[in-house]
Structures are given as C-alpha cells and as structure tokens.
C-alpha cells in the first residue's frame, strides 16, 4: 500500500521558498484573520469547538486539550494564566523549533485565540534555553503583533487585552514538565510539584489556575477556530484527530519532519517510502516512535490483540511496519506516540551503547528532587557506562532491569517513567545483546558503526 500524501496544516509554510517569519508575510498569507473573527465570538463557543475537535496535546502525553481547558478553575476569582510549553527537549523531537523559527505568528495567533477563549490576560512562552535564536524571533514577532494590535491592549479593536511574554529557560529537560516549568517560571529551581494538590488547572503559576499547552497544540487550536471542531475530527482517525508531525532522525535515507493525518500512515510507510528506507546495505533494527523516553520497537517482533474499529472489536496482528502512527495504536503495542520524535536505528547500532547514550542523558537531566529517579537514573547510567567503557558483567542485564523496575510509578513526575522505560524496553527486547556484550566488546565493530564518544 502506497503511503498517503502529506497533509500540512501546521507546517503549511515551513521551508516554503520566499516565506519569511515577519508579520507582513504572515498577514499576506491570511494571517490573524482567524483571531479577528474569534474575538467576536463567545469564548465558550471556542472552548466547545476545541472539545468537539478531540484535539490531543502534542507535547507527549496526548491528553485531550478540551478536557484540560475544562478542568481550569474558573470560579476562584484568581487570574488564569496560559503558558506555551516551548521547552522542546525530548531527544529526537524538533517540530516546535521549526514553528517558532519559521512561522512564529502562527503560534502567537493560536495562543491569542486560546487566551481569548479562556479569558486569559497574561500568557507566557517558556522557551528552551538552548534556543536563543527562536527566542529572539518570537520577541520580534510579538513586538510586531503588539504594534499591529494582535497582542497587548484592546486586541483587534475589542475591549479584550492580553499580553505575551517570552521567558527563556536555562537549559533543563525537566522544565518541559509542566509543574517544573511553572516553578522555573516563578524563578525557582525546576522541581516538579506534587499532584495532588498542585494541579496546574487549580494551583499553577503563582498558585493561580494555569493552562500549559504545547506549541503545536496551540497551532492546532488556530486551525480548529478557523474550520470548526467537526472539520478537525474529519482529519485523522477517531480519537486521534488532526495531523501529526513526525520528526524522523537516525538511519534512514531522508530524515526530517513529515506531517500526516494521524493514524493514516503506518510506521513502514513512513520509514520505507517517505523516508526512503534504510541506508544502502543496511537493515532496520529498531525504532523509538515518540521521543527517546518511549519504549523501543524491535523490527521482527509481532503484536497481536484486539482493537476497536468503529463499534466492533477486530483482531490485529502487526509487525513494526504495520503499526498505524497514532496515540492509541502505539499505546496498544506498549510504547507511545509521545512527541513524535521517531528515532531509527539500523543493524550497525549496538543496543548497549545506544542505551548508555540515553541513560547518560536522563541521569544528567534528572532534577534530583525525588529519590527513585535521582538515584536510579544515575545508577543505570553508571552501569551502562561501565559496560561500554569498562568491565561488562553477565548479570548486568538483570540488574539494569531490576533497577529500572524500581523507578516508574513511584516518582513525583513522569520523568521516572521517561528514564526507566528505555532501559526496561531495551532489556526486554534486546536482552540477548546485553548478555552477550562482554563477548561483543572483544570483536571488531561492524562496518559503518559510529565511534563511541
């Protein structure tokens, strides 16, 4: 089956020749028309459209955006804040950066519509510390939009006012966790908060109700405000509406970003047809489908079970190639759609070394607040580093799995899962490779394999 054509909603103008990131270009392409219309509509109607659309958050967890907005405490009398989570730090993910670099006004427009819908008077864009260029672009874009009356006082001539500030992080993965982000925005160490009681929708920024949405999610809101929630549900598949941007990296012929209707393309179509398949003379070995914290898939494994199609339960028997790329299908086979960062590894990759790399990242990024993640992530890193650069033992695989099993579900935030899932899935699927590693180390590396750093 041939791969469907790309459906570019969010990335419509990305890398379009002649398209620039200034206001004039955006307005020339119909920009801010949706905002002008939206501010004349009742805010509740906009929220309803988003609820109807079934839009799921694009940050990684896939939480329905309409439900998130519905949880906001609107009776407290406190101001409601909206925070744009632009701390795109998940390894393998690079979609939000393109939006901010090349089409910042799309984000600003989506943000302003969302602010208007939720009666937000103050929004923040929390941008990752490593993206200074993006921050400068956004600052300039906001200044342009403010001068044109799309941001700030009396938006589009109405009585509604709302300002946006850009806040730069200082370079920490944990700032992408929404409560860690809020702490950081308040000027503190980005230690995620315990939930309960600190749900952002009730006790968020400055203990006020707060909405935290991903960059891509808010751009989808703009599309929904323009075309309606019902139109959005027609894109993609039921419960996985809209488009998804896949950031494909690793050992494929054409890595890059691709936007498709959610669930309409399979992993095999994406990798083999869209991305051109493996490098010459190589075969695919494994793929991480949703950012480095998602559980890895091994080419050759089969997934069997029952799934809902319409109202019926249908049997499925998939190889990795057959898996539709949407939240639910990937969830069913034990991994996740996550942030859309597809990391491909071919047969030159040694899984112990790949895991050592991932573990080094997570142990470096653990905030250090709660015990299992703080100690567990570094322990796993120390084990895999020792295996690669020192003495590897046969019992290390079992020890790694046991350490990883002691982390998820016992931590304050989802970092516990993020740092333990790679180890758990690598051991589960490539356990033999870990057991044989002491011998593998003695042999020569396969041709084309990367040098270890």
């Amino acid at each position, binding site marked *: 089956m041939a791969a469907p054509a790309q459906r570019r909603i969010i990335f419509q103008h990305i890398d379009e020749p002649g398209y620039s990131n200034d206001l004039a270009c955006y307005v020339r392409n119909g920009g801010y028309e949706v905002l002008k219309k939206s501010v004349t509509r009742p805010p509740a109607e906009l929220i309803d459209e988003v609820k109807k659309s079934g839009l799921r958050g694009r940050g990684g967890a896939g939480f329905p955006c309409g439900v998130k907005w519905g949880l906001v405490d609107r009776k407290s009398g406190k101001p409601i804040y909206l925070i744009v989570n632009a701390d795109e730090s998940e390894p393998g993910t690079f979609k939000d950066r393109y939006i901010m670099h090349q089409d910042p006004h799309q984000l600003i427009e989506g943000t302003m519509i969302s602010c208007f819908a939720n009666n937000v008077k103050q929004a923040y864009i929390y941008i990752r510390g490593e993206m200074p260029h993006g921050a400068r672009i956004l600052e300039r874009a906001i200044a342009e939009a403010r001068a044109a009356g799309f941001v700030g006082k009396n938006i589009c001539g109405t009585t509604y006012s709302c300002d946006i500030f850009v806040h730069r992080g200082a370079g920490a993965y944990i700032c992408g966790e929404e409560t860690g982000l809020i702490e950081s925005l308040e000027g503190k160490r980005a230690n995620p908060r*315990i939930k309960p009681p600190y749900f952002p929708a009730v006790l968020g920024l400055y203990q006020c109700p707060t909405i935290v949405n991903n960059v891509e999610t808010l751009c989808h809101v703009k599309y929904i405000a323009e075309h309606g929630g019902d139109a959005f549900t027609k894109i993609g598949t039921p419960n996985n509406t809209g488009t998804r941007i896949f950031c494909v990296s690793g050992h494929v012929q054409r890595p890059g970003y691709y936007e498709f209707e959610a669930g309409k393309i399979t992993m095999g179509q994406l990798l083999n047809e869209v991305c051109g398949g493996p490098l010459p003379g190589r075969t695919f070995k494994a793929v991480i489908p949703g950012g480095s914290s998602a559980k890895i898939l091994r080419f050759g494994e089969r997934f069997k079970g029952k799934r809902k199609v319409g109202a019926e339960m249908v049997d499925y028997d998939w190889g990795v190639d057959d898996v539709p790329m949407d939240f639910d299908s990937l969830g069913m086979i034990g991994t996740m759609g996550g942030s859309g960062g597809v990391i491909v590894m071919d047969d030159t990759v040694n899984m112990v070394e790949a895991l050592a790399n991932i573990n080094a990242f997570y142990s470096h990024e*653990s905030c*250090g607040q709660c*015990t299992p993640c703080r*100690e567990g992530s570094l322990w796993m890193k120390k084990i895999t580093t020792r295996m690669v650069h020192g003495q590897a033992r046969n019992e290390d695989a079992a020890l790694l799995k046991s350490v990883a099993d002691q982390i998820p579900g016992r931590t304050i935030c989802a970092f516990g899962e993020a740092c333990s899932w790679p180890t758990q899935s690598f051991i589960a699927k490539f356990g033999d490779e870990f057991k044989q590693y002491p011998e593998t180390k003695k042999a020569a590396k396969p041709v084309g394999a990367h040098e270890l750093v």
Partner: protein
Amino acid sequence: MIAPPKPDLVTVNIDGKEIAVPKGTNVIEAARLVNVDVPHYCYHPKLTIVGNCRMCLIEMGMPAVDPVTKAPIIDPVTGKPKINWIPRPQIGCGTNVSPGLHVKTTSPMVKDAREGVMEFLLINHPLDCPICDQAGECKLQEQSTGYGRGYSRFVEQKNVKPKRTQLGPRVTLDDERCILCSRCIRFSKEIAKDDVLGFVDRGSYSTLTCFPGKQLANNYSLNTVDICPVGALTSTDFRFKMRVWFLKQTNSIDTETSVGANTVVWSREGQIYRLTPRRNDDVNDTWMPDSGRELFKSVMSADRLAATTHLDARVAEAAELFTLNASAGSIAVVGSGRSSVEEQFLTKKLAAALKASTQLVSRVGQGDQLLISADRNPNVRGALVTGLISKLPKIGDAPAASRSANGDAAAPIRTGGLTDLAASIDAGKVKVVVSIGEDLVAAGLTAAQLAKVSVVYLGTHANATSAAAKIVFPTLSVFEKNGTFVNQQFRLQKFAKAVPGPQGATDDLIVLAKLTAAASSAAMASDLGSLWKLISAEIPAFATTSYAQLPETGILIDATPFAALPFVEGETLHYKPAAPAVALTP
C-alpha cells in the same frame, strides 16, 4: 479550660483497623494513631510537604460505588465493600484522609517500593556509621534495618561531595551523607525565616549549600541538625563528643526566656553533652533556640560556688542575723524570676516570716517573635501566682548583663527593678538583703549600697554579690534539681534533675526551708511532694495540681487574676499577648 471545637472526623481504614481522624490529617499521622509506622524522611509534621523522599509510598484505595445508584458495591465473596485499589503506590505524607479511604502498609507492593527507595538512598550514602555522630538516632539506619533488603547490589563508584563544610558558626555539613530531603531548607525558609540554604547541581550530584555570601548563623540553626534524618548536618559543638546511645535523656525547660521551650538534657555520668528540643505543640512545636542549647555549659564552669562550712552552721549564722534585724522592713528579700514555683513559694514564706519586703529582678530584652520572648526570666508568672510579688518588677535601665543570649548582641538585656530597694538602703531602712540567686550589682545596686547591708546570698556562680555577701549558700542549677515554671502562657511545666550538683552545693529548696524554719521556728517541708500539698492547699490556681501528676507537656492554669498586668512579651510562637507589649524607653 475551653474545649476546642470538635473537628470534622473522617473514618479511614488502615491495615484493617478503622479509625476516625480529623479532616485534613495526612495518612502518616492517621496511621500513627493506630500504631502503624509509615517510614519517611522528608515529611516533618511542622514543615510544608514536598513528597520527595518517596519512602512513605503506600497502597491506597477507595470503596467502589455503583456508577448509577451511587451505592457501595459489596464484594460477594467477603461480604465487605469492594475497594478500588490505586494500581500505583501513593505518598502517605501528601495524601489527606478522605471518608472511606483504605490503606495497606504491608502489601507486597509497599514492601517492594520501600526496598527500592531504601536501596536508592543507600547507594551513594557513605555507610560510615561507625564514625558518624548520627548513628544510634539515624532514620536511615533504623529504616534500612526495618525496611531495606540487607545487601547491596551497587558495584559502581559512589558520588563524591564536600565533607565537613562549615555552614555557619554552629553547624557542620557532610554532603555525602545528605539524602536531599530538604527539611533543613524548608526549616530555614519557613520557620527561621532566614532563607540561606539551597541545593546546587542536579540529579544525584545535587549538593546542599549556603547561598553565596550567606551563612547559616541564625539563632535557630541547630534545629536543622535535629531534623536532619541522617548525619549530614551535625552540631559543631557536639560532633565526635559522645555516642548518643550512652546518653541519658532528662526532660527539662529552656530557662532563657518566658517562652519555656521544652527540652531534653542528654547526659552521661554526671556530665551534660547537649540540649535538644522536646516536642510540645502548644509551646515550641519541635524547635528551640541555639542560645538555649549553650546553657548547660555554665554547669561545669570553674566559678561554681562551693561551701566550705556545714549548711547548718551557715543557717544558724543567718538566723542570728535575722534575729538582730527583727523589726519589720529591715530585711529585704530579692526573689528571682529564675527560681522555680516551689522556690518562689518558699521565698514568699521566708519573706513573710522575716516581715521582709519582696522584689523581683526584671530582665527584659528584645523578642524575636519565635521562641525568644522579651521577658528573659522563665518564671515571673510563677512569682505572681505564688504571691511572691503582686505587680510586675520595674524594667531596669542597667547596662547589658554579661551573659546575653546568643546572636542577640544588638539588643542587650536590661536587668533591674530594684530602685525601691536601693532607695531603702540609702535611707538606712534596710539592713539585711536576702538574694535568691540574683546578682544585685548586675541588677543595679552599687557596691557602696551593698557595703551598707549584710547580704545573704543563695546562688550557683561567683559574682560581685557573692563576693560581697556575708553568708553564701551555694545552690543548684536548673539541670541539677526538680521543679516547675509558669511560662508566658500561664502554662505550668516541669523540669527534672539530669545530673547531680557539685560538691558543696545544696538544693535551693532545702536552704530556703531551713532558713524559713529558722526565721519562724516552725519546720518547713523541702521535698516536692510535701511542698505541693502546701502549694495546692494555699494557691487556688494550683488547687488540683501536684508535681507527680503534672504531664510532661504542662497544663494551663487560670490567668484571669493577672489579665490586666502589662506584661512585656510581644507575640511569639503559639502566644499572643492579651495587651500590646509595653514600649521600652531607650
């Protein structure tokens, strides 16, 4: 006493035991009520909850309800309500009780979670218990014994962090032992209001430190040592001095101010090694000032008074002096707000027998709104209740006393209140002054005035008054005797003898009883049991009280007769003055 309003009670089930607890109680405290121990490190009942140690992970569930009828679903097998258990363990500290909450603290999931957390906490911990001061009172030791696996699977290098960092004048930090529970950080910020501590670096390399240019130097810094669950924060004074399991614990009271913080005296073989706070939720929570922890040092000091003659000989000498000055008003008694209630009671009896005037020395400093109050006498209210004095002593304008509270150098203590006595001495009316532990020179009398009178001095340490005194009775410090104080809340609290007194010193009560007997030629009791019978018979506020039955956390007594008095204390922890504190004229 007015009963507190009945709180809303919530019934929860902990390990099969049903218990009703006040709404808002967290699961750790609820479990404590049914004697179920939920191990924890970061949780402290008097600090905010951060839930970071993950040691208190337990299994929780709520009764299942039918989605339509809202009626509880009954399990057909057991006949009991079906419980929907949460598939992941939850933290006990951060979860407040809700009606019908079920908790399992012994299930395999909980055991596994505890073993995991214990292992993680220990992998980078030095395990230097044999040389660690915390050994014996270390939560990590206790809970690894109780909930750990008992073996290590860690073969990697442990993290290296700074050892023996001086955080301030009194606290030394060993960062490798730190388990990053953040109790000390929260204490400094929330209780001491001196936000100087924080973590630097990330993940397992996180390191506790003072902010640049700051020091942990506030007068409550040693509380961080008390609440540190491991041996990371240690008292610079106490460290390496003594193993805690050799020390005897005796309940006492901090005598430096009228707050009356509850304390524990740790001693061995007649020597005191440290003072720590004792929890009393109505007085000092679990805190005490650093300054109060130094008080024991004077017990062993070289200038302790010691008698060289027999007590009875000195009593006879005093009796002779009393007989020579039998006319009313020629003897003055200077009582003390540092004396115990019993001593003040006997002082009153002595003054009555001598037909003497009575006065009290006042000590007034600056309050810190926490556990240091403006009144630096621990028991002025005791003197009021026993009737030793009927109005508050005058606030002195004498210069700072030699021993001022630690970290309070800017606000000297004004000792005084003896201006009337000074005038009487100058007028030649008073011939004999009996001072109960008060240095009259420090309290404002001049050496010339002292030279005009015969001084009978009861006291612990050598000073200008003891040097000028005709008769000296060396007595005991608060650590060497039993007694009670009435604090600023009118709470009667007791302290107990921790160590024996030095040779040649006599219990104040015995001296006072003998002097009273000599002055009135009738025997007077000197033991607490007999004395309290007299006290409760004579003083209405103590009518139903006895020393033996007084609870360790004290009891509130009737304060209404003294409500109108202008007490000097401002607001402190758990205390709001009835009237605004009097302004001190500079």
